């Protein structure tokens, strides 16, 4: 299980990325919170599945230009 945040910019906001990910990979998606505004949007979601399948799915999502972060944002600090 992973908790992640997807950040979408511009044209990607209109793409059904989460639907496609659930359809094409062995990953169950569970959206917990989201905020979509003009030009930018983010979705917090839980992903369930085999670790390697989640990694494969996230690699595909990133390849589309979606930013993927841990749900808790940056944990590295100065």
């Amino acid at each position, binding site marked *: 299980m992973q*908790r992640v945040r997807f950040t979408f910019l511009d044209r990607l906001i209109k793409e059904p990325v989460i639907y496609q990910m659930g359809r094409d990979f062995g990953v169950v998606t569970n959206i917990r*919170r989201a905020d979509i505004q003009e030009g*930018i949007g983010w979705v*917090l979601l839980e992903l369930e599945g085999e670790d390697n399948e989640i990694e494969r799915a996230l690699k595909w999502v990133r390849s589309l230009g979606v930013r993927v972060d841990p749900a*808790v944002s*940056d944990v590295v*600090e*100065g």
Partner: protein
Amino acid sequence: MSYVSSMRCKECSREYPVGAFNVCDFCFGPLEVVYDYDAIAEVTSRERIMSGPNSLWRYADFLPADYNPDVDINAGFTPLIRSKGLAEHLGLNELWIKNDSVNPSYSFKDRVVAVATAKALELGFDTIACASTGNLACAVAAHAARGGLKSYVFIPSDLETGKVLGAAIYGPTMIAIDGTYDDVNRLCSELAEEHPWAFVNINVRPFYADGSKTLGFEVAEQLGWRAPMHAVVPSASGAMFTKIYQGLKEFERTGLIDSVQTKMHSTQPRGCCPIATAYEEGRFVIRPVKASSLATSLAIGNPADGYYALKTIEASGGSAVIAEEHEVALGVKLLAETEGIFTEGAGGVAVMGLKHLVELGRIQPDESTVVYITGNGLKTTELVADVVHPLHIEPTVEAFEQAIAASTA
């Protein structure tokens, strides 16, 4: 004793018992500590605080952990200095400098780690950990050394040795991770879930963050029990920025100071300014950036509390400003030359941000203003290495006099 009543999700308000977790199971929102302010108001007083220790623990009634001398390295209660030279330079009549660069491990991170470590012990942990590029690592390793705790410090493998020497000296287990900044982020958030450690800014983050409230408390007390008109604060994750304001409002709520009118101003460097950019664009959604700044301690591209920093700006009537990258070192030098305080790049950003705020007319000359200096320049000497150009002379008085005459001609 602590006056914590529970933990609560900042988004959906769902309540949780006190424990080592930082995210709401329901909506994945961040958790915050809930206090019984009526009970605090019953016991607190200016006299009670002033009779406390000369450290952040004088505000223990407002903190989520009890004072524990076993892990105390005397963080906090740092000087608030009335500015003279910098104030004159900027045309301000009441400027104060909160010099937090003189904490035990030389940054404000000692405050948050002091509270996180005390709470970690209460919760039964024997190991503390963090992922850091500098100041946080120093604070975690120092507190662990004092308390006889195990500590793990994760760093990007391309970090310069000098940046982490101030942490390594305390003897933590230091792990350098090969990979990008994002890789380090991902790994550490996974490790935090799998190991029984208090990862100070992950699973005990709600307690950790509240350590920064003391930066608000102290300024109010040191100003003679009043809040300033303006607070100018360098921002990375945005947590300290929001907690300074929370601290001032808690003093107001419990009757220790009058109405808080403080305008909170966030300052960020051009190379990493997601909060300031969102402010300028008039939006509350943070657009994560790939951080690249000379102010290394502010280089947080996806700030966990960025949204809440923006809400604090809105609530206080404050603003956000950006210091250009070439201004980072200028600000460090300006503070050193006008006030005798040597800060790191984040302090340079704060000083130049303050300058811009004055130029923009957001701060008027007679309004009381506090600028927060949160880290020490001796950790990042390479930033201003160009200031070293001594007069080279032969060992004679004549050579000295000639060199001085030439340099002042």
